[in-house]
């Protein structure tokens, strides 16, 4: 009987309009009641899973061998700083120095050459500027591994195999495309009026670049430098293949060597890892904002 009485048009419309909404409400309701605590639990567990291995590394670097074996989850009984001294002598200080040299030199060359090129591309009408841009774009697509074998011969012919120069030049060449695009994007947003004003005052392009443009680009230069630091400090393939002298190795490769030399001297190994990891973590915590801006600008181009 009820079925024969056709529903009026209005409720039908209402139903189609409202149904998805009320279903969403139901799911939302369940979500709020049951899933909220679970979500918080998940976030906290995840944070612990991320942080704990690092804490374990730091704790273990203060332990002695028997503590590492018998009390893996606990805190060290005392702070054995001599583990760090030993790790330092086993090579970490050397590797650290090498990494600092290569990283800081390549930061300087990469940001300067990239900013220099970016300014030219943004403000000047360079003959074949389009193809140059394409050349840079193509450079973004090339992976270091692919160039490994020819570079092995090339660096030997140039006489820079097994020198800091090998790494500094390669870290610069392979990062110029990314860094140039990063800085170029920022320069495109600068008003050309500043340049023109300085031109009228008789400043040369070079003077404008050093005195006006570089200071104005400071925020993006900091981001570029931090990202280059992260790259160069952690780079592995080139450092493994093009440096064979044990005293010249950078941290990522040196640590691997050290691991095979020290074998079961666990606390010293942990101390070495801690010493290698700390600078980048500290740098990241200090420059977090610049890091993230660089990452999002660089990736979102």
């Amino acid at each position, binding site marked *: 009987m009820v079925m024969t009485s056709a529903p009026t048009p209005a409720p039908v419309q209402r139903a189609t309009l409202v149904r998805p909404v*009320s279903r*969403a*409400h139901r*799911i*939302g309701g369940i*979500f709020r009641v049951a899933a909220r605590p679970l979500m918080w639990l998940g*976030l906290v567990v*995840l*944070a612990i899973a*991320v942080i704990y*291995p*690092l804490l*374990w590394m730091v704790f273990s670097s203060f332990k002695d061998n028997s503590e*590492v074996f018998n009390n*893996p*989850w606990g805190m060290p009984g005392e702070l054995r700083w001599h583990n760090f001294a030993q790790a330092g002598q086993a090579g970490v200080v050397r590797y650290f120095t090498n990494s600092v040299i290569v990283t800081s030199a390549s930061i300087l060359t990469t940001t300067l*050459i*990239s900013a*220099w*090129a970016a300014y*030219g591309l943004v403000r000047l009408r*360079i003959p074949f500027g389009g193809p140059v841009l394409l*050349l*840079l774009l*193509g*450079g973004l*697509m*090339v992976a270091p*591994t*692919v*160039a*490994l*074998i*020819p570079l*092995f011969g*090339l660096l030997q012919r140039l006489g820079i195999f097994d020198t800091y120069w090998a790494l500094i*030049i390669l870290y*610069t060449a392979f990062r*110029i495309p990314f860094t140039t695009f990063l800085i170029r994007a920022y320069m495109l947003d600068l008003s050309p009026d500043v340049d023109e004003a300085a031109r009228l005052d008789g400043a040369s392009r070079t003077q404008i670049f050093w005195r006006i443009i570089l200071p104005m680009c400071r925020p993006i230069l900091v981001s570029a430098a931090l990202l280059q630091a*992260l790259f160069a400090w*952690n780079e*592995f393939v080139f450092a*493994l293949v093009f440096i064979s002298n044990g005293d010249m190795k950078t*941290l*990522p490769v040196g*640590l*691997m060597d050290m*691991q095979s030399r020290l074998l079961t001297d*666990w606390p010293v*190994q*942990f101390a070495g*890892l801690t010493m290698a*990891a700390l600078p*980048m*973590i500290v*740098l990241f*915590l200090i420059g*977090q904002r610049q890091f993230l801006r660089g990452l*999002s600008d660089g990736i*979102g181009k």
Partner: protein
Amino acid sequence: MNRTLNRWRTWVWVLPAVILLVVFVYYPIVENIRLSFFSWSAFSARPTFVGLDNYRTAAADPVFWRSLLNNTLFAVTSLVFQVGFSLVLAAVLEEFVHQRLRGLLRTIYFIPAAISITVSGILFSFIYNPQIGLLNSALSAVGLDSWTHAWLGEQGTAMWSIIGMSQWQSFGYTAVLFVVAIQRVPREFYEAAKVDGAGPVRSFFTVTVPLVREMTTLIIILTISGAFLVFNEVMVMTAGGPSNTSQVLGTWLYRNAFMNDDMGYAAAIATVIFVITFAIAAVQLAVSRRRRIQW
């Protein structure tokens, strides 16, 4: 004449970049493709032309295929965690977590990305270590003794252990990129969804997912090409062992070039990597050229 000269003088600005790129990036790529048609070793005076022999060697080499499979496993797992999981994580952080705490959690999740793969690789080889490692110790503590393994020493678990370490290191990095993308979505969209009665799950699928699509595509592409370039973590944790079961294209290339001294074959593997990563990059270019979503 003078004008032309003046115009060319502007090349001073791009010359350093162009020279470095041509000599150290482009020349090696071209040279690598050429070398892949030769048979030679690092110390042989004269490479001999062998045509496609090196590629035939690859096609018949089970370790080559195993490496390709491992790279693929790497890519698929990373897609699940560094794209799927990270996107949900970013949305949850933005939607539910209070500003202050959100910043803290984001920082914590990102930290592993700031340390070198060598450090995290060695650290995890200790975690997986059967004598001192946390993993077996944790499994035993909850009564799962039967689940304990010599993680990196067994053929069945080595590759997955490396892949697991990589997820630990990288999910926070992509989550942060997603957070940046979500923050760029105008708040009105979420408010409009709320007014229409959409709950958080619904607004995730109807607002967040479509509006961060551009970032999602980029991260998918970066993740896949990253997975085909994996090298450092495998070198540090297993060097491809045991019995080549955790070999990837990069480490197999390295082994052939610098241990087996078969440079020609290594160059052929490098060309395969180049083709794969170049194809992925070309897709990226095509996608990023597409018009951005307008609002």
